[in-house]
């Protein structure tokens, strides 16, 4: 049942944030189509190490599509050509024998390269720190069922909350905008009574931080939604805009 393919990889190599990067070409034979894309890169790295060369640095951790750490731009798409998956869930069966595969890091001013394919996404943490929470301390909380929440609202909040913070939306956007990421958190919390109370404050604080960190504007190209591995909808951006405008009008 197991099938193997031979591939050529063009991989972005860059020694440090300030160094000049370039593509290196590697040939790999006998890659199992059952293996994941990152397992294929493991094979490449084993080969490089055996040749006493430096392995390719890339971010990855859970390898089941939920931690949001993996971040590769594969053949011109964030997380590669398959739909609704992160790079770690992309499988080699999606590629043809003899294919040349181009692997790049996220390209965005707000996500500088650390080394090779690894980028710095600290800006996302900073945006959340600016206001992506409900301001409650631990303890002294009323019973969880004290406030009923309509199921459709709760479900909609869950859909927005499924964002994994990978940054594919920013990488996909020609403006390098973080609107999908920001709007997902703003929506999740604005939809719930617990988060509604400070919705205006939150929207303003997060948008201000996003602007400060050098992310671009949203021009509704919908590239973010198309490339999002978790199908976060751009209707969240509309909700963010509503929250933001209402907040600004009140000022």
């Amino acid at each position, binding site marked *: *049942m197991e099938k193997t393919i031979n591939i050529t990889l063009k991989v972005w190599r860059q*020694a440090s944030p300030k*160094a000049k990067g370039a593509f290196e070409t590697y040939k790999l034979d006998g890659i*199992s189509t*059952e*293996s994941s894309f*990152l*397992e294929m890169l*493991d094979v490449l*790295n*084993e080969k490089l*190490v*055996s040749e006493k060369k430096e392995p390719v*640095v890339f971010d990855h*951790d*859970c*390898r*089941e*599509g*939920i*931690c*949001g*750490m993996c971040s590769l731009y594969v053949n011109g798409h964030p997380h590669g050509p398959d739909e609704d*998956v992160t790079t770690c*869930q992309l499988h080699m*069966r999606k590629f043809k024998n003899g294919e040349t595969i181009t692997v790049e890091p996220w390209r965005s001013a707000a996500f500088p390269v*650390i*080394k090779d394919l*690894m980028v*710095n996404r*600290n800006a*996302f*943490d900073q945006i*959340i720190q*600016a206001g*992506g*929470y*409900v*301001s*409650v*301390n*631990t303890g002294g*909380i*009323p*019973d*969880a*069922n004290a406030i*009923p*929440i*309509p*199921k459709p609202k*709760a*479900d909609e909040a869950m859909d927005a*909350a499924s964002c*994994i*913070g990978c940054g594919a939306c920013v990488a996909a956007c020609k403006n390098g905008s973080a609107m999908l990421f920001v709007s997902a958190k703003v929506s*999740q919390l604005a939809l*719930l009574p*617990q*988060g509604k109370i400070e919705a205006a404050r939150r929207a303003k604080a997060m948008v201000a931080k996003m602007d400060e960190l050098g992310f671009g504007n949203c021009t509704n190209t919908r590239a973010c939604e198309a490339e999002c591995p978790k199908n976060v909808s751009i209707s969240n951006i509309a909700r963010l805009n509503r929250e933001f405008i209402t907040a600004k009008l009140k000022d």
Partner: protein
Amino acid sequence: MTTINSKIPAGALADKWKEYKDHQKLVNPANKRRLDIIVVGTGLAGASAAASLGELGFNVLNFCIQDSPRRAHSIAAQGGINAAKNYPNDGDSVYRLFYDTIKGGDYRAREANVYRLAEVSNSIIDQCVAQGVPFAREYGGLLDNRSFGGAQVSRTFYAKGQTGQQLLLGAYSALSRQVNKGTVKLYTRYEMLDVVIIDGRARGIIARNLTTGKVERFFAHAVVIGTGGYGNTFFLSTNAMGSNGSAAVQIYKKGAYFANPAYAQIHPTCIPVHGEFQSKLTLMSESLRNDGRIWTPKKKEDAEAIRAGKLKPTDLKEEDRDYYLERRYPAFGNLVPRDVASRAAKERCDAGFGVGTTGLAVYLDFSEAINRLGENVVRARYGNLFQMYEKIVDENPYKTPMMIYPAIHYTMGGIWVDYELQTSIPGLFAIGEANFSDHGANRLGASALMQGLADGYFVLPYTIQNYLADQIQVPRISTDAPEFEDAERGVKERIQKLLSIQGKRSVDNIHKELGLVMWDFVGMGRNEAGLKTALERIKEIRKEFWSNVYVPETETNPNIELEKALRLADFIEIGELMARDALLREESCGGHFREEYQTEEGEALRNDDKFAYVSCWKYAGEGNEPELIKEDLTYEFVKRQQRNYKS
């Protein structure tokens, strides 16, 4: 001989925690600002602890090895979190959650700790809802529950199949709020490489900045370890690639006891291994066992035909399928605890009834549920899990049964802590999966999230104050102190040693060898001869590692091979400790199954007369056998019984 004090408060089971809190020492707000606490790890335990301690006004330094606290592997927990709310009115209570957890752990956990866990479980749900965690709800607007293994009530709260993600993002948001307020300072892409002990107390850590490669020193009045479990000792596990046991090994070598290392959980429903390039195993949530039925073919010739690709599972008639869990355990059926389900799967496959190309798989079938509920209901409950399965295996589980097989998932053993979650080193605490405390020899599903958050939100923020109350006069110690210097030198020498070996084998190559030894001899079925073989083989692997590993010295960082090598050195120590502990424990209990000790029906056979204790291992220096210290598990409130999931 070393003695051990678990500091369990006296009194009735239900009053212990209240009694403790009523009489413990506290730190006043002005003094809290003067006290520094290091929290290592940002998973459910670490993030919730760092956030809560920051809220209280302590000065917190929080470390994680990933680029963001939100990546910690708690995020991958799928199914849910238990609490004794009894919203469904189906007979649940704090006592019943306590009892199920004690029984599920095969009577090898502390009664007082487990009762406290059950007691605070309800506050966790309240807390998470207040943070905006979008738990699943009924049409009436109230919270929904489902069932997990080892329970006859529905007490599991969930957020689709992404409960861990939502709970972690809740803790992460609380943590982020404190970072904004300046009470918590975050250190991302940092890895702890040693703890610093001054005058017998934990006073800081040595950590390596993974981006620059620089080894740095950090002082604190107390250090908290929330770095998760050591399942990756097996190379293949459901843990994340970066999950490691190094913090645990470092503090073990400085004097913290390692408790019950042999207790590892093998999860029954993982996607089977596909080939030698495989890097990790993917879990399919236990919640699937609410509606999925587990079976293998009844006839060997059918199993053989399926393995050869000549027969499809959907071709098999109902009477030709053996729903072996329902057959063996009528009362709990497909929802028996994980250890029981895993062993039953192994038993069927060993007997020749396994499916898949390797014969190391059983079916998890949803056809009955789809007929009963409709595909849409099944999709609403498990859609993301089905999608994940399809992306990995390339088969549609709505049309053909899933294939699953057990895999290493969680470690119940870990750093020994007393009732205050303090290790045997004063000022050093361990929380979440990193400690050993609440799950005995087997953890029930949906209890890891509960324990991580219980420790971080509701237990440690109290108990750590009892320690810190008499530390308020201690000034911040300079990191130029000789103890910091020594610890840093030790770390740098270890790194230099690894870089200087310049051998022939890669880190992963040696790690895979260790993993196979662990799986074959320290896995689901263990026996004396096998464990002795494992101890021999691990010795050889250690020698091979320290003489023939190749770690490149890179001009710039990160140096990913060096990071892995440092972790593998510690996994080798843990592997040996696991085998040693498993050899000592001449009984079967929970996840620890010694083939010599089983009932006639193949169930785990405990020996309460000889082994009703926690085995605590104390490091005795390189090359020496560690000292065994026993903490007796006296049961005052529950009668130990042979676990029964049949009737």
